[in-house]
Protein backbone atom coordinates (compact mmCIF):
# COMPACT_ATOMS: atom_id res chain seq x y z
CA UNK A 1 0.00 0.00 0.00
CA UNK A 2 2.67 2.49 1.00
CA UNK A 3 5.26 3.56 -1.51
CA UNK A 4 8.68 2.11 -1.00
CA UNK A 5 10.33 5.36 -2.05
CA UNK A 6 11.68 7.74 0.53
CA UNK A 7 9.70 10.90 0.94
CA UNK A 8 12.09 13.28 -0.78
CA UNK A 9 12.16 11.50 -4.11
CA UNK A 10 8.48 11.89 -4.83
CA UNK A 11 6.99 14.38 -2.41
CA UNK A 12 9.67 17.03 -2.23
CA UNK A 13 9.61 18.00 -5.93
CA UNK A 14 5.81 17.94 -5.83
CA UNK A 15 5.63 20.15 -2.77
CA UNK A 16 8.07 22.60 -4.35
CA UNK A 17 5.94 22.64 -7.50
CA UNK A 18 2.76 23.20 -5.49
CA UNK A 19 4.24 26.23 -3.76
CA UNK A 20 5.58 27.50 -7.08
CA UNK A 21 2.18 27.12 -8.76
CA UNK A 22 0.42 28.83 -5.89
CA UNK A 23 2.75 31.84 -6.09
CA UNK A 24 2.45 31.97 -9.88
CA UNK A 25 -1.33 31.71 -9.78
CA UNK A 26 -1.50 34.61 -7.35
CA UNK A 27 0.93 36.83 -9.24
CA UNK A 28 -0.46 36.48 -12.75
CA UNK A 29 -2.43 39.48 -13.90
CA UNK A 30 -4.39 37.66 -16.58
CA UNK A 31 -7.02 35.77 -14.65
CA UNK A 32 -7.53 33.20 -17.40
CA UNK A 33 -3.87 32.22 -17.06
CA UNK A 34 -4.31 32.12 -13.30
CA UNK A 35 -7.25 29.75 -13.69
CA UNK A 36 -5.13 27.41 -15.80
CA UNK A 37 -2.26 27.49 -13.31
CA UNK A 38 -4.79 26.78 -10.59
CA UNK A 39 -5.85 23.66 -12.47
CA UNK A 40 -2.23 22.52 -12.66
CA UNK A 41 -1.91 23.25 -8.92
CA UNK A 42 -4.90 21.02 -8.25
CA UNK A 43 -3.32 18.27 -10.28
CA UNK A 44 -0.12 18.46 -8.22
CA UNK A 45 -2.20 18.23 -5.05
CA UNK A 46 -3.90 15.20 -6.59
CA UNK A 47 -0.51 13.53 -7.06
CA UNK A 48 0.45 14.33 -3.48
CA UNK A 49 -2.76 12.79 -2.11
CA UNK A 50 -2.13 9.77 -4.30
CA UNK A 51 1.40 9.56 -2.94
CA UNK A 52 0.01 9.41 0.59
CA UNK A 53 -2.19 6.51 -0.45
CA UNK A 54 -5.38 8.57 -0.22
CA UNK A 55 -6.73 7.64 -3.62
CA UNK A 56 -10.28 8.74 -2.84
CA UNK A 57 -9.11 12.23 -1.95
CA UNK A 58 -6.94 12.25 -5.06
CA UNK A 59 -9.97 11.33 -7.13
CA UNK A 60 -12.01 14.11 -5.57
CA UNK A 61 -9.22 16.58 -6.17
CA UNK A 62 -8.94 15.51 -9.83
CA UNK A 63 -12.69 15.71 -10.37
CA UNK A 64 -13.56 18.82 -8.37
CA UNK A 65 -10.37 20.83 -8.15
CA UNK A 66 -8.96 20.30 -11.60
CA UNK A 67 -12.19 19.77 -13.48
CA UNK A 68 -15.40 21.40 -12.39
CA UNK A 69 -14.02 24.30 -10.37
CA UNK A 70 -11.89 25.38 -13.32
CA UNK A 71 -15.03 25.48 -15.44
CA UNK A 72 -16.73 27.54 -12.73
CA UNK A 73 -13.82 29.96 -12.62
CA UNK A 74 -13.79 30.28 -16.40
CA UNK A 75 -17.50 31.04 -16.51
CA UNK A 76 -17.12 33.56 -13.70
CA UNK A 77 -14.34 35.29 -15.61
CA UNK A 78 -16.53 35.19 -18.69
CA UNK A 79 -19.18 37.21 -16.91
CA UNK A 80 -16.81 39.61 -15.22
CA UNK A 81 -13.43 40.52 -16.60
CA UNK A 82 -10.16 38.75 -17.34
CA UNK A 83 -7.87 41.48 -16.16
CA UNK A 84 -7.11 42.40 -12.61
CA UNK A 85 -6.93 45.95 -11.38
CA UNK A 86 -4.31 46.65 -8.78
CA UNK A 87 -5.22 49.41 -6.44
CA UNK A 88 -2.47 51.99 -6.26
CA UNK A 89 -1.00 52.90 -2.89
CA UNK A 90 -2.18 51.33 0.33
CA UNK A 91 1.39 50.38 1.23
CA UNK A 92 0.75 50.58 4.97
CA UNK A 93 -2.24 48.27 4.66
CA UNK A 94 -0.19 45.76 2.66
CA UNK A 95 2.56 45.93 5.26
CA UNK A 96 0.00 45.30 7.98
CA UNK A 97 -1.35 42.25 6.14
CA UNK A 98 2.20 41.01 5.62
CA UNK A 99 2.98 41.27 9.33
CA UNK A 100 -0.25 39.54 10.32
CA UNK A 101 0.30 36.70 7.89
CA UNK A 102 3.92 36.25 8.95
CA UNK A 103 3.04 36.15 12.64
CA UNK A 104 0.18 33.71 12.08
CA UNK A 105 2.38 31.53 9.90
CA UNK A 106 5.10 31.63 12.55
CA UNK A 107 2.65 30.43 15.18
CA UNK A 108 1.54 27.60 12.93
CA UNK A 109 5.13 26.60 12.18
CA UNK A 110 5.99 26.68 15.89
CA UNK A 111 3.24 24.11 16.45
CA UNK A 112 4.78 21.82 13.84
CA UNK A 113 7.10 19.81 16.16
CA UNK A 114 4.11 18.79 18.27
CA UNK A 115 2.62 16.85 15.39
CA UNK A 116 3.34 13.14 15.18
CA UNK A 117 5.65 11.99 12.40
CA UNK A 118 4.31 11.11 9.00
CA UNK A 119 2.98 7.55 9.19
CA UNK A 120 3.85 7.28 12.90
CA UNK A 121 2.08 4.14 14.24
CA UNK A 122 1.75 5.71 17.71
CA UNK A 123 0.02 8.90 16.60
CA UNK A 124 -3.45 9.36 18.13
CA UNK A 125 -5.20 8.76 14.80
CA UNK A 126 -3.42 5.51 14.13
CA UNK A 127 -3.64 4.29 17.71
CA UNK A 128 -7.31 4.84 18.55
CA UNK A 129 -9.96 4.75 15.83
CA UNK A 130 -8.10 3.54 12.76
CA UNK A 131 -7.51 -0.04 13.99
CA UNK A 132 -11.21 -0.34 14.77
CA UNK A 133 -12.18 0.66 11.25
CA UNK A 134 -9.53 -1.55 9.69
CA UNK A 135 -10.53 -4.66 11.63
CA UNK A 136 -14.30 -4.11 11.65
CA UNK A 137 -15.04 -2.76 8.18
CA UNK A 138 -15.28 -6.08 6.35
CA UNK A 139 -17.17 -8.03 9.04
CA UNK A 140 -19.48 -5.08 9.73
CA UNK A 141 -20.23 -3.81 6.27
CA UNK A 142 -18.64 -6.02 3.60
CA UNK A 143 -16.97 -2.93 2.15
CA UNK A 144 -13.28 -3.40 1.34
CA UNK A 145 -12.74 0.30 0.64
CA UNK A 146 -12.37 1.66 4.15
CA UNK A 147 -12.88 5.23 3.04
CA UNK A 148 -16.37 4.47 1.80
CA UNK A 149 -17.40 2.60 4.91
CA UNK A 150 -16.01 5.27 7.21
CA UNK A 151 -17.51 8.06 5.14
CA UNK A 152 -21.00 6.70 4.72
CA UNK A 153 -21.45 4.38 7.68
CA UNK A 154 -19.28 5.08 10.71
CA UNK A 155 -19.26 8.79 9.99
CA UNK A 156 -22.65 8.97 8.30
CA UNK A 157 -23.69 12.12 10.17
CA UNK A 158 -20.70 14.06 8.85
CA UNK A 159 -21.44 13.04 5.29
CA UNK A 160 -25.11 13.92 5.65
CA UNK A 161 -24.14 17.40 6.79
CA UNK A 162 -21.57 17.68 3.98
CA UNK A 163 -24.34 16.92 1.52
CA UNK A 164 -26.47 19.55 3.20
CA UNK A 165 -23.57 21.99 2.80
CA UNK A 166 -23.47 21.31 -0.94
CA UNK A 167 -27.23 21.84 -1.01
CA UNK A 168 -26.93 25.13 0.88
CA UNK A 169 -24.11 26.31 -1.40
CA UNK A 170 -26.31 25.60 -4.40
CA UNK A 171 -29.24 27.46 -2.84
CA UNK A 172 -26.98 30.36 -1.90
CA UNK A 173 -25.55 30.79 -5.39
CA UNK A 174 -29.00 30.38 -6.79
CA UNK A 175 -30.55 33.06 -4.63
CA UNK A 176 -27.69 35.51 -5.19
CA UNK A 177 -27.34 35.18 -8.93
CA UNK A 178 -30.70 34.17 -10.28
CA UNK A 179 -32.61 37.04 -11.85
CA UNK A 180 -36.04 36.60 -13.28
CA UNK A 181 -35.94 37.63 -16.93
CA UNK A 182 -39.13 39.67 -16.66
CA UNK A 183 -37.63 42.01 -14.12
CA UNK A 184 -34.46 42.67 -16.09
CA UNK A 185 -35.98 43.42 -19.46
CA UNK A 186 -35.07 47.11 -19.12
CA UNK A 187 -31.81 46.43 -17.34
CA UNK A 188 -28.94 48.32 -18.95
CA UNK A 189 -26.50 45.51 -18.25
CA UNK A 190 -28.13 43.47 -20.98
CA UNK A 191 -25.76 44.92 -23.55
CA UNK A 192 -22.75 43.85 -21.53
CA UNK A 193 -22.81 40.22 -22.64
CA UNK A 194 -24.87 40.44 -25.76
CA UNK A 195 -25.05 37.54 -28.13
CA UNK A 196 -22.23 37.98 -30.60
CA UNK A 197 -23.70 39.03 -33.91
CA UNK A 198 -21.21 37.14 -36.00
CA UNK A 199 -21.56 33.98 -33.97
CA UNK A 200 -22.64 31.13 -36.16
CA UNK A 201 -24.05 28.26 -34.11
CA UNK A 202 -23.17 25.68 -36.71
CA UNK A 203 -19.46 26.37 -36.65
CA UNK A 204 -18.76 23.97 -33.81
CA UNK A 205 -20.09 20.83 -35.46
CA UNK A 206 -17.06 18.80 -34.41
CA UNK A 207 -17.38 19.86 -30.80
CA UNK A 208 -21.07 19.08 -30.78
CA UNK A 209 -20.73 15.66 -32.29
CA UNK A 210 -17.76 14.78 -30.07
CA UNK A 211 -19.67 15.88 -26.98
CA UNK A 212 -22.75 14.00 -28.07
CA UNK A 213 -20.54 10.95 -28.34
CA UNK A 214 -18.76 11.55 -25.02
CA UNK A 215 -21.70 12.26 -22.74
CA UNK A 216 -23.11 8.71 -22.50
CA UNK A 217 -19.68 7.29 -21.73
CA UNK A 218 -19.08 9.91 -19.08
CA UNK A 219 -22.37 9.10 -17.44
CA UNK A 220 -21.68 5.40 -17.60
CA UNK A 221 -18.29 5.94 -16.00
CA UNK A 222 -19.88 8.11 -13.32
CA UNK A 223 -22.43 5.43 -12.52
CA UNK A 224 -19.60 2.96 -12.25
CA UNK A 225 -17.79 5.31 -9.88
CA UNK A 226 -20.85 5.62 -7.64
CA UNK A 227 -21.80 1.95 -7.68
CA UNK A 228 -18.26 0.61 -7.45
CA UNK A 229 -17.26 2.99 -4.66
CA UNK A 230 -17.35 0.08 -2.24
CA UNK A 231 -14.40 -1.55 -3.94
CA UNK A 232 -12.40 1.20 -5.64
CA UNK A 233 -11.81 4.91 -5.16
CA UNK A 234 -14.93 6.89 -5.77
CA UNK A 235 -18.38 7.28 -4.38
CA UNK A 236 -21.26 9.66 -4.41
CA UNK A 237 -19.29 12.88 -4.47
CA UNK A 238 -16.92 11.98 -7.28
CA UNK A 239 -19.52 10.20 -9.37
CA UNK A 240 -21.97 13.04 -8.85
CA UNK A 241 -19.39 15.56 -9.98
CA UNK A 242 -18.69 13.57 -13.13
CA UNK A 243 -22.42 13.18 -13.82
CA UNK A 244 -22.92 16.91 -13.34
CA UNK A 245 -19.90 17.59 -15.53
CA UNK A 246 -21.42 15.55 -18.34
CA UNK A 247 -24.44 17.84 -18.26
CA UNK A 248 -22.18 20.90 -18.02
CA UNK A 249 -20.45 19.58 -21.13
CA UNK A 250 -23.80 19.58 -22.90
CA UNK A 251 -24.45 23.12 -21.73
CA UNK A 252 -21.03 24.30 -22.88
CA UNK A 253 -20.88 22.59 -26.24
CA UNK A 254 -24.47 23.22 -27.21
CA UNK A 255 -26.03 26.13 -25.38
CA UNK A 256 -27.94 26.69 -22.19
CA UNK A 257 -31.28 26.72 -23.97
CA UNK A 258 -30.66 23.23 -25.27
CA UNK A 259 -29.88 21.96 -21.80
CA UNK A 260 -32.77 23.77 -20.13
CA UNK A 261 -35.17 22.35 -22.68
CA UNK A 262 -34.14 18.94 -21.32
CA UNK A 263 -34.01 19.78 -17.63
CA UNK A 264 -36.57 22.21 -16.33
CA UNK A 265 -35.26 24.61 -13.78
CA UNK A 266 -37.84 23.65 -11.20
CA UNK A 267 -37.28 19.92 -11.52
CA UNK A 268 -33.56 20.55 -11.31
CA UNK A 269 -33.84 22.24 -7.93
CA UNK A 270 -36.31 19.61 -6.84
CA UNK A 271 -33.75 16.92 -7.64
CA UNK A 272 -31.09 18.76 -5.64
CA UNK A 273 -33.39 18.51 -2.65
CA UNK A 274 -34.31 14.91 -3.47
CA UNK A 275 -30.73 13.74 -2.98
CA UNK A 276 -30.48 15.19 0.53
CA UNK A 277 -33.98 13.91 1.17
CA UNK A 278 -33.01 10.37 0.14
CA UNK A 279 -30.05 10.43 2.50
CA UNK A 280 -32.16 11.68 5.38
CA UNK A 281 -34.96 9.25 4.49
CA UNK A 282 -32.59 6.30 4.76
CA UNK A 283 -31.57 7.59 8.17
CA UNK A 284 -35.19 8.00 9.22
CA UNK A 285 -36.03 4.53 7.93
CA UNK A 286 -33.35 3.18 10.24
CA UNK A 287 -35.00 5.10 13.06
CA UNK A 288 -38.36 3.55 12.26
CA UNK A 289 -36.87 0.07 12.13
CA UNK A 290 -35.79 0.46 15.72
CA UNK A 291 -32.16 1.46 15.36
CA UNK A 292 -30.28 4.70 15.61
CA UNK A 293 -30.35 7.38 12.93
CA UNK A 294 -28.30 6.13 9.94
CA UNK A 295 -27.78 2.72 11.55
CA UNK A 296 -28.19 0.73 8.35
CA UNK A 297 -27.89 -2.61 10.09
CA UNK A 298 -31.54 -2.42 11.13
CA UNK A 299 -32.60 -2.27 7.49
CA UNK A 300 -31.97 -6.00 7.01
CA UNK A 301 -35.73 -6.60 7.17
CA UNK A 302 -36.33 -4.72 3.93
CA UNK A 303 -32.97 -4.98 2.17
CA UNK A 304 -31.65 -8.32 0.94
CA UNK A 305 -29.02 -10.13 2.91
CA UNK A 306 -28.02 -10.23 6.54
CA UNK A 307 -27.16 -7.30 8.73
CA UNK A 308 -23.72 -6.72 7.21
CA UNK A 309 -25.04 -6.80 3.66
CA UNK A 310 -27.86 -4.46 4.71
CA UNK A 311 -25.24 -1.98 5.84
CA UNK A 312 -23.50 -2.33 2.51
CA UNK A 313 -26.74 -1.66 0.64
CA UNK A 314 -27.54 1.22 2.97
CA UNK A 315 -24.20 2.78 2.08
CA UNK A 316 -25.07 2.39 -1.60
CA UNK A 317 -28.44 4.11 -1.12
CA UNK A 318 -26.82 6.96 0.73
CA UNK A 319 -24.14 7.33 -1.95
CA UNK A 320 -26.85 7.54 -4.60
CA UNK A 321 -28.48 10.34 -2.62
CA UNK A 322 -25.17 12.18 -2.39
CA UNK A 323 -24.61 11.64 -6.11
CA UNK A 324 -27.99 13.11 -7.07
CA UNK A 325 -27.49 16.19 -4.91
CA UNK A 326 -23.95 16.83 -6.11
CA UNK A 327 -24.83 16.24 -9.76
CA UNK A 328 -27.68 18.70 -9.90
CA UNK A 329 -26.07 21.29 -7.65
CA UNK A 330 -23.05 21.32 -9.97
CA UNK A 331 -25.40 21.86 -12.88
CA UNK A 332 -27.43 24.54 -11.09
CA UNK A 333 -24.29 26.39 -10.01
CA UNK A 334 -22.89 26.24 -13.52
CA UNK A 335 -25.95 27.50 -15.33
CA UNK A 336 -26.25 30.39 -12.91
CA UNK A 337 -22.60 31.34 -13.10
CA UNK A 338 -22.37 30.98 -16.85
CA UNK A 339 -25.40 33.05 -17.72
CA UNK A 340 -25.13 35.58 -14.89
CA UNK A 341 -28.35 34.26 -13.42
CA UNK A 342 -30.52 34.88 -16.45
CA UNK A 343 -30.45 31.30 -17.72
CA UNK A 344 -30.73 32.52 -21.28
CA UNK A 345 -27.33 32.34 -22.87
CA UNK A 346 -23.88 32.09 -21.52
CA UNK A 347 -20.59 30.33 -21.78
Amino acid at each position, binding site marked *: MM*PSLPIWQ*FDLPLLVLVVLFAVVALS*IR*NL*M*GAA*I*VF*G*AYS*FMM*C*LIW*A*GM*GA*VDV*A*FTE*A*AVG*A*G*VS*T*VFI*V*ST*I*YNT*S*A*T*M*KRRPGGMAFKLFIGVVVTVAGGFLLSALPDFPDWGDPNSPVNATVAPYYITHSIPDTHVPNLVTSVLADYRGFDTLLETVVVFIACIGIYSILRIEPARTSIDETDEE*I*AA*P*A*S*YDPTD*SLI*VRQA*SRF*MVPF*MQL*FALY*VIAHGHY*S*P*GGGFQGG*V*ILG*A*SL*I*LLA*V*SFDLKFLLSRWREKSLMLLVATGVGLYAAVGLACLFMGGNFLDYGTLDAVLPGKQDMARSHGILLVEIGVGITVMFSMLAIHINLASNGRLERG*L
Partner: protein
Amino acid sequence: MLLALLRAVKGPTVIDRLVAINVIGTKSIVLLLFAGILFGQLEMFVDIALGYGLLNYIVSIAASRYYQHRRCLEPEPPAGREAQS
Protein backbone atom coordinates in the same frame (compact mmCIF):
# COMPACT_ATOMS: atom_id res chain seq x y z
CA MET B 1 4.98 20.24 -18.49
CA LEU B 2 6.54 23.36 -17.03
CA LEU B 3 7.26 24.61 -20.53
CA ALA B 4 3.65 24.04 -21.52
CA LEU B 5 2.57 25.87 -18.39
CA LEU B 6 4.83 28.79 -19.29
CA ARG B 7 3.19 28.90 -22.69
CA ALA B 8 -0.25 28.82 -21.10
CA VAL B 9 0.61 31.70 -18.80
CA LYS B 10 2.50 33.93 -21.20
CA GLY B 11 0.92 32.74 -24.43
CA PRO B 12 0.90 35.69 -26.82
CA THR B 13 -2.00 34.25 -28.74
CA VAL B 14 -5.13 32.45 -27.66
CA ILE B 15 -4.19 29.37 -29.65
CA ASP B 16 -1.00 29.03 -27.60
CA ARG B 17 -2.98 28.94 -24.41
CA LEU B 18 -5.53 26.45 -25.65
CA VAL B 19 -2.93 24.02 -26.95
CA ALA B 20 -1.00 24.42 -23.72
CA ILE B 21 -4.08 23.54 -21.64
CA ASN B 22 -4.56 20.44 -23.74
CA VAL B 23 -0.92 19.41 -23.48
CA ILE B 24 -0.94 19.85 -19.70
CA GLY B 25 -4.05 17.72 -19.43
CA THR B 26 -2.70 14.93 -21.59
CA LYS B 27 0.62 14.86 -19.81
CA SER B 28 -1.16 14.81 -16.47
CA ILE B 29 -3.00 11.64 -17.41
CA VAL B 30 0.25 9.94 -18.38
CA LEU B 31 1.90 11.17 -15.17
CA LEU B 32 -0.98 9.80 -13.11
CA LEU B 33 -0.62 6.40 -14.71
CA PHE B 34 3.14 6.48 -14.09
CA ALA B 35 2.43 7.28 -10.45
CA GLY B 36 0.07 4.31 -10.43
CA ILE B 37 2.81 2.00 -11.68
CA LEU B 38 5.17 3.51 -9.12
CA PHE B 39 2.81 2.72 -6.26
CA GLY B 40 1.71 -0.62 -7.67
CA GLN B 41 -1.99 0.28 -7.65
CA LEU B 42 -2.55 0.78 -11.33
CA GLU B 43 -6.20 -0.28 -11.27
CA MET B 44 -7.08 2.55 -8.92
CA PHE B 45 -5.13 5.16 -10.78
CA VAL B 46 -6.79 4.22 -14.05
CA ASP B 47 -10.08 5.39 -12.51
CA ILE B 48 -8.56 8.65 -11.40
CA ALA B 49 -6.90 9.19 -14.76
CA LEU B 50 -10.16 8.49 -16.59
CA GLY B 51 -12.05 10.95 -14.45
CA TYR B 52 -9.32 13.51 -14.89
CA GLY B 53 -9.27 13.06 -18.64
CA LEU B 54 -13.03 13.41 -18.97
CA LEU B 55 -13.12 16.58 -16.90
CA ASN B 56 -10.09 18.01 -18.64
CA TYR B 57 -11.97 17.69 -21.91
CA ILE B 58 -14.70 19.92 -20.49
CA VAL B 59 -12.14 22.44 -19.28
CA SER B 60 -10.61 22.61 -22.74
CA ILE B 61 -13.98 23.11 -24.38
CA ALA B 62 -15.05 25.71 -21.83
CA ALA B 63 -11.82 27.65 -22.31
CA SER B 64 -12.10 27.58 -26.09
CA ARG B 65 -15.74 28.59 -25.85
CA TYR B 66 -14.70 31.48 -23.63
CA TYR B 67 -12.15 32.71 -26.15
CA GLN B 68 -14.58 32.24 -28.99
CA HIS B 69 -17.19 34.42 -27.34
CA ARG B 70 -14.70 37.02 -26.24
CA ARG B 71 -13.19 37.23 -29.68
CA CYS B 72 -16.54 37.92 -31.24
CA LEU B 73 -17.36 40.52 -28.67
CA GLU B 74 -14.13 42.44 -29.07
CA PRO B 75 -12.60 42.64 -32.53
CA GLU B 76 -9.24 43.85 -31.21
CA PRO B 77 -8.58 41.95 -27.95
CA PRO B 78 -5.86 44.09 -26.34
CA ALA B 79 -7.75 47.34 -26.63
CA GLY B 80 -11.08 45.73 -25.80
CA ARG B 81 -9.81 43.99 -22.70
CA GLU B 82 -8.30 47.14 -21.29
CA ALA B 83 -11.46 49.07 -21.97
CA GLN B 84 -13.55 46.47 -20.22
CA SER B 85 -11.54 46.37 -17.03
